[in-house]
């Protein structure tokens, strides 16, 4: 057999794989690895989109989620929002084409990051039930809502419109309605949709969320503040967070006319002088058009760029929930007798600005006799799975809770405690595409730990005070019991009236510290 023949034979097996196949093979990466997780992921993608759309349009979000069980493993999911809606022409691509979105080349703190979200849910629905999804959209009071029935043409990764009509039923002034049928399973407990909705409400206190689960239980989470969070600004990437491959791709696609111009306009914190200096060190003419440079030259420039002394990326592009608002949300949800919170000043890991907020609640309706409730939130999205792989859980376990006089089990505090940690960043480093656990970069772990410790100290002070008050109460009740007895003895001894002695003693007991003198 000659060399050529083998290659010929092997190339017969090579063909373009469809998105459906890609999806099938990678569903675990996308959050669809098992029926209960798939159900959660579908809802998560839809709700994330709704909240993002509302915030982008400056509308206080109102989201309704309904899950109906059709058969043992089939569920109908409906998500409705009051967002700006999507114009008729764009709807098929937004919902019917994978990797289509506005967020892919922009660095901005936002919920989704890859644009794989909602169309993956549509594809999953189609693959498991064969039914088209129903999308209704209305962009203004003056326009009639539109209804699409969509499929994805899996060989071409293009939307296929099954039905395209005006929707005659009642519909809010603006917003999106999405209805899908999927195969799934509804689980209760810590990783349930119930829990996800609850945590979403906590992380998004300016939204109103109504939710009905398959057991027809209704939950309503009212709005806690009537103000949207500050809008996050988009920034250009900082060189320290850009890998060589991405750098090369950006160099090829830039509008800048020279390599120096490219560096100074397409990145944060690179001035034209710095860019020229880097070119000189890399022995490349700064005015060479970047698309004319080869791999070796680009790599040399990239390496020197990584070593350059650059300012930190701008930090004011981020938008925290704000610790005061978190406290309000936690109080409302748990009726905690104590809350403490902190928003740490933003910091940087690998050129990406990020911030950490922590809120700790104690007591109230929080369950005793078990480990603390850890709520992990990344860019306002609750993380439900893979808790133990997450930087947040690791940092909490790393705190020595004995310092704060809190019992712990395996590093996780026990008792009626809730620990909410929010990481917000232009880029959240997930450990996998499932976007469920934050990668433990040292800078991130350190910030989380500092924030948790800060709240831990406040909790310790509260607990010390609480113990003291309990002791004081116990002391008082002990003295209250003995006061009449002492009065009886002293009446017998001195002839003074018992009632007078009792009332005098009760005045002494009121004095704050009577131990000792």
């Amino acid at each position, binding site marked *: 057999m000659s060399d050529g023949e083998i290659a010929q034979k092997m190339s017969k097996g090579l063909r373009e794989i469809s998105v459906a196949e890609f999806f099938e093979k990678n569903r675990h990466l996308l959050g669809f690895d098992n029926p209960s997780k798939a159900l959660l992921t579908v809802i998560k993608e839809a709700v994330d989109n709704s909240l993002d759309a509302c915030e982008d349009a400056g509308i206080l979000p109102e989201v309704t989620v309904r899950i109906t069980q059709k058969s043992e493993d089939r569920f109908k999911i409906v998500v409705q929002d009051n967002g700006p809606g999507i114009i008729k022409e764009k709807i098929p691509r937004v919902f019917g084409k994978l990797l289509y979105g506005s967020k892919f080349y922009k660095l901005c703190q936002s919920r989704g990051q890859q644009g794989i979200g909602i169309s993956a849910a549509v594809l999953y629905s189609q693959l498991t039930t064969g039914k088209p999804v129903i999308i209704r959209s209305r962009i203004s009071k003056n326009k009639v809502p539109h209804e699409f029935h969509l499929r994805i043409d899996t060989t071409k990764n293009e939307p296929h419109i099954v039905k395209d009509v005006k929707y005659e039923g009642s519909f809010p002034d603006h917003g999106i309605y999405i209805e899908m049928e999927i195969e799934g399973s509804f689980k209760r407990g810590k990783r349930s949709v119930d829990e996800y909705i609850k945590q979403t409400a906590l992380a998004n206190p300016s939204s109103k969320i109504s939710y009905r689960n398959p057991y027809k239980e209704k939950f309503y989470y009212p709005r806690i503040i009537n103000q949207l969070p500050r809008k996050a600004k988009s920034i250009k990437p900082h060189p320290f967070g850009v890998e060589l491959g991405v750098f090369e791709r950006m160099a090829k696609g830039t509008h800048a006319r020279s390599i120096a111009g490219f560096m100074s306009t397409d990145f944060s914190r690179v001035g034209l002088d710095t860019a020229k200096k880097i070119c000189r060190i890399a022995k490349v003419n700064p005015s060479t058009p970047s698309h004319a440079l080869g791999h070796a030259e680009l790599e040399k420039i990239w390496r020197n760029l990584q070593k350059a002394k650059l300012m930190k990326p701008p930090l004011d592009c981020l938008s925290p929930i704000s610790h005061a608002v978190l406290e309000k949300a936690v109080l409302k949800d748990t009726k905690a007798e104590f809350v403490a919170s902190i928003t740490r000043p933003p910091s940087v890991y690998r050129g990406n600005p990020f911030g950490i907020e922590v809120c700790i609640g104690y007591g109230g309706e929080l369950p005793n006799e078990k480990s603390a409730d850890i709520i992990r939130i990344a860019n306002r999205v609750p993380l439900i799975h893979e808790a133990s792989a997450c930087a947040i859980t690791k940092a909490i376990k790393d705190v020595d809770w004995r310092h704060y006089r809190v019992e712990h089990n395996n590093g996780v505090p026990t008792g009626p405690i809730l620990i909410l940690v929010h990481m917000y960043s232009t880029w959240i480093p997930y450990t996998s595409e499932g976007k469920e656990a934050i990668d433990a970069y040292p800078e991130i772990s350190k910030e989380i730990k500092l924030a948790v410790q800060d709240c831990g100290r406040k909790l310790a002070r509260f607990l010390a005070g609480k113990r003291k008050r309990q002791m004081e109460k116990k002391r008082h009740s002990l003295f209250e019991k003995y006061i009449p007895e002492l009065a009886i*003895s002293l009446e017998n001894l001195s002839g003074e009236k018992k009632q007078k002695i009792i009332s005098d003693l009760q005045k002494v007991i009121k004095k704050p510290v009577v131990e000792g003198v």
Partner: protein
Amino acid sequence: MSDTKKKLIGFGKTLVKQIGEKKNPHVDVPIRSLSNINFNPKKKMLEMGSNTSRRFFFNVAHVRKFVQTTEAAAVAKELLEADKHLSLRQTFYKIKRTIPGTNINIVDEQQESNEAIEDLELITGEPREKLNINANKNGSVAGKVIIEDRGDTIDWSRLGSGGWAIPSNVENIKFKKVNAKFIIYMEKAAEWETLHEDKIWNKLNCIIMCSQGQATRGVRRLLKRLNEEFKLPVYVLVDGDPWGVYIYSVIKYGSISLAHMSDSLAIPSARLIGLTATDVEKYGLKRHLIKFKEIDKKRINQVSNYAWFRDKPEWQKEFNRWKKLGGKVELAALTSNGLSFMSEHYLPDKIRKKDLMD
């Protein structure tokens, strides 16, 4: 009004005044422990030091004892007013009651009321007898002595096999006739009965007295009065072990818990007649040695370190002899040398030879 009653009322009024001034009511109680005991080498007796502890009502650790003490004071005042006496046990029941609406008793055990009464003695400076609270009578005496008690004339030589039962309060006894040269006090009733049967008090012209274990206060007061008023030497006869030595020590120097009353209780001239470590050799008692237990060894070290034994070479030698023997001997062991060995040989020999320890 008696002084004692005035002191009790004064105690109550002081507390009421503090309460009226919105102060945390308190009382200073001398500390009754070894740390606050001094040995006075001149008077040859234990004395209470000047350390006091201030006890507060509004203090979780004090409140219970505080109320027990005021309650004991109220009971004593009631007894004085009614001119009645109660025993320690009866006083315990008088003080004991449950605080309404709780499961707290003012006292749960007699030990607590006993301590409250001892504190009250220290606070008022009045002995228990003057508070009309008595211990159980526990002790017998025989000898050629005639006394008068509550109008009755009693001859200690004509009271059959039991002898006279010593009451807890002997302050009002009148001695009509005392015909004796010394007193033998022993820790065991059994030995007393044997000696009484042998009428040793007639043979040696002495008084024999006992109580069970540590001498009760009534017995000690009776010894003290006879020693002081009739100059009768007191000889102490105890088991050969550290516990026996301490019984002797209490009679001679006073006790740690009643150090404040040493003046009226201690008899510095008292001597130990036996059993000594040398007796063991001399009277062939070695075969009756009962091996020391850990607690006995510990007690020897404790007792030998008390200030009033520490500086006495002969006593240090005695303790070392005991340690060498490694065991204790009971008085009853002397019976193995003959039924009346103690009254016919042991005691007469010792007294004749002045074989006594100081």
